[in-house]
């Protein structure tokens, strides 16, 4: 019996100690809908936060499966950061309901809709119906693809983290300032890299890029999808090819989760090229964080536009 006591006590002590260490270093558990939000939260939160992103960057963020393993992650979250604007309407509500976590229910302190203070484009005016496809009545949810919005998201996360973990306020503010500086320096590079192509016309697969194209002064004249969420039809493709020929459009930007077959056949018809850009962090190997995401996209886009415009 005595032989048993010692190991048991030792084990209990070890458990107690680990528990103490765990409380001493208590971190804010953050769960985000996408890897972009996770990357920005990591910039601001540093090692004071644990971050899990639900949707992967290579995934279409409209169609994420509400897997039970996500419920586990959301169950432990102190803060949930959503993209908002109904991007996650098909999968987030059941996850939040079944998370058994009061802290992150919409309206609670631990729920942050990242879209509330950003610049939103494509907000429909007038009557909208599903005859327009899967329209987002609250505006285009792909707003993180404007680095100015990235900055605003970072501000919102900084304020929210400071509210949830007041001890870290100074650290969050300092990390935000650092991120802001690095982002501003990078923005100068990106603006310079794409400046020669201002006004160039492009076609994209889905309406994922209005904020990105607007930021760099590029013009999207059409989409491979006839309407949001509706797969391309032959008649639409023919009309698009005609329009691209008429306006001399040579570049088709495609998200990594769409099939390349149709875009490639359009490109071959108009003598143009297909460019797979990353709409999210993790959407390409090189797009490892929010700033790298833009680095990657700007580099690829500038190279492609240089080729087709000769500038």
């Amino acid at each position, binding site marked *: 019996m005595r032989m048993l006591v010692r190991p048991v006590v030792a084990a209990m002590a070890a458990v107690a100690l680990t528990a103490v260490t765990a409380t001493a270093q208590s971190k804010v558990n953050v769960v985000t809908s996408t890897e972009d939000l996770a990357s920005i939260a990591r910039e601001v939160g540093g090692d004071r936060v644990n971050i899990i992103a639900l949707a992967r960057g290579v995934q279409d963020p409209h169609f994420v499966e509400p897997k039970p393993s996500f419920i586990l992650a959301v169950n432990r979250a102190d803060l949930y950061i959503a993209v908002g604007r109904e991007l996650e309407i098909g999968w987030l509500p059941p996850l939040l309901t079944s998370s058994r976590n009061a802290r992150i229910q919409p309206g609670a*302190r631990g729920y942050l809709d990242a879209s509330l203070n950003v610049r939103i484009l494509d907000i429909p005016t007038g009557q909208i119906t599903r005859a327009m496809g899967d329209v987002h009545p609250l505006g285009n949810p792909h707003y993180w693809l404007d680095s100015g919005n990235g900055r605003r998201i970072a501000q919102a996360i900084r304020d929210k983290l400071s509210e949830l973990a007041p001890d870290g306020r100074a650290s969050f503010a300092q990390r935000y300032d650092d991120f802001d500086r690095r982002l501003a320096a990078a923005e100068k590079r990106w603006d310079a890299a794409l400046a020669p192509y201002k006004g160039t016309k492009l076609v994209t697969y889905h309406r994922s890029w209005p904020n990105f194209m607007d930021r760099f002064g590029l013009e999207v004249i059409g989409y491979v999808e006839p309407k949001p969420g509706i797969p391309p039809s032959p008649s639409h493709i023919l009309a698009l090819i005609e329009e691209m020929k008429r306006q001399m459009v040579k570049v088709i930007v495609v998200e990594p*989760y769409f*099939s390349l077959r149709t875009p490639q056949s359009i490109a071959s018809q108009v003598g143009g090229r297909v460019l797979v850009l990353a709409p999210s962090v993790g959407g390409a190997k090189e797009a490892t964080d929010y700033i790298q995401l833009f680095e990657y996209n700007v580099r690829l886009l500038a190279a492609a536009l240089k080729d087709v415009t000769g500038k």
Partner: protein
Amino acid sequence: MRTIGIRMPALAAAVLLAASPAAAQTNDVQALRQEVEQLRTELASLQRQYADRLAALEARLGAAQGAPAVPAVPPVAEVPAGAAGAGPAGPLPVYGAPTAGSKIFNPDIGMIGNFLGAVGSNQGGSETIAPTPFMTLQESEASFQAIVDPYARADFFLAVGEEGIEVEEGYVTFPTLPGGLLVKAGKMRANFGRLNAFHNHSLPWIDRPLVMYNLLGGSPDEPDTGIKDAGVSVNRLIPAGSLFLEATGEIYRGDSGTLFKTARLRDFAALGRVRGYVDLSDDANLETGVSYTRGHNDLGSGFITELYGTDLTFRWRPLSRAIYRSLAARAELVWSRRQEAPSLQRAFGFYGSLEYQLQRRWFVGGRFDQAERALNAAVRDRGVSTMLTYWPSEFSQIRGQYRRTRYGDDRRVANELLFQLLFTIGAHGAHPF
């Protein structure tokens, strides 16, 4: 924002005017152009700075106003300053475009139409299977869903037939209870096995497999089979590391189709289920569960029917091609023990099914099912089905199913071709998992 918008061009014009004589003096057109270009960039950056600062200010203002935990006003989406071309300025309603403030609190309303057609010989001499008419708007589903208060949400699903309306489900959920509990109360589809909780429109087939008719309380006049009753469901996560483990306990009044009948208040039905889930990779996962339920059957208070079930689902969906390819394999086994006057009826049934997504809009599938009858286990029905599904969009679905059923009582065979058209209007519901 608007004042800035007007002032900026004016300022720019003034600067330009002041700049032009200097440029004219040097007669250097190139320099003038450069200067204009430089001014333009400066103006643009100034505008951006103002937009950023305004947005930041609004964010602060919003944070200051939104400080109380329960906001006095419904959530609105502000269009930040600087959103040129972004549409209307000011607050936007979250749930559509209400003409009166009270409409904001209306629940999300959706309607799923379910139009069915059938051809073939359905004279199998059996009354187990609900005969599908030539054409019917079988059972449309109306859904009303909203958050009740900071502590609860409510979901109503009404099954609207051609002639009547029935409450398919109507329950309140308390997602914020202490102890990690998730509690539901109301009329619900019971958490027995995997399939029972599915609504008709989210099934991978047009019909339900034989095991649900034979063992889970189906009847010829009730095409929508399964255990559904008024009761309370308590559900808790069991900590198990990265493994998702969930235990459910439910109590029902004890009236469900032909399965359970209650004669006295204390003849309630009880149910227990444990469900496990694990991600095999980012693309594949496995889900399994065991279920048990018991209740009193139609022979009276002294007679109990017990059901045991186990289910297994494997899913594969490559993340980067998730909208084009997927596969799901399901199997479910159910054992029934029904107390009868002289003895015990022990019946068994199961189904196995496979669905594969070929393209963005096309799915194929197959199902094999077999079930003995709860009332007479000596009779065993068998069925085979193949399915082809087409999705015009996320909001509609066309499906064809060939079903061959060999009934056990007189060895007759029914060959049927079923056709289904599903169409959704209203609120964008969540996709089932």
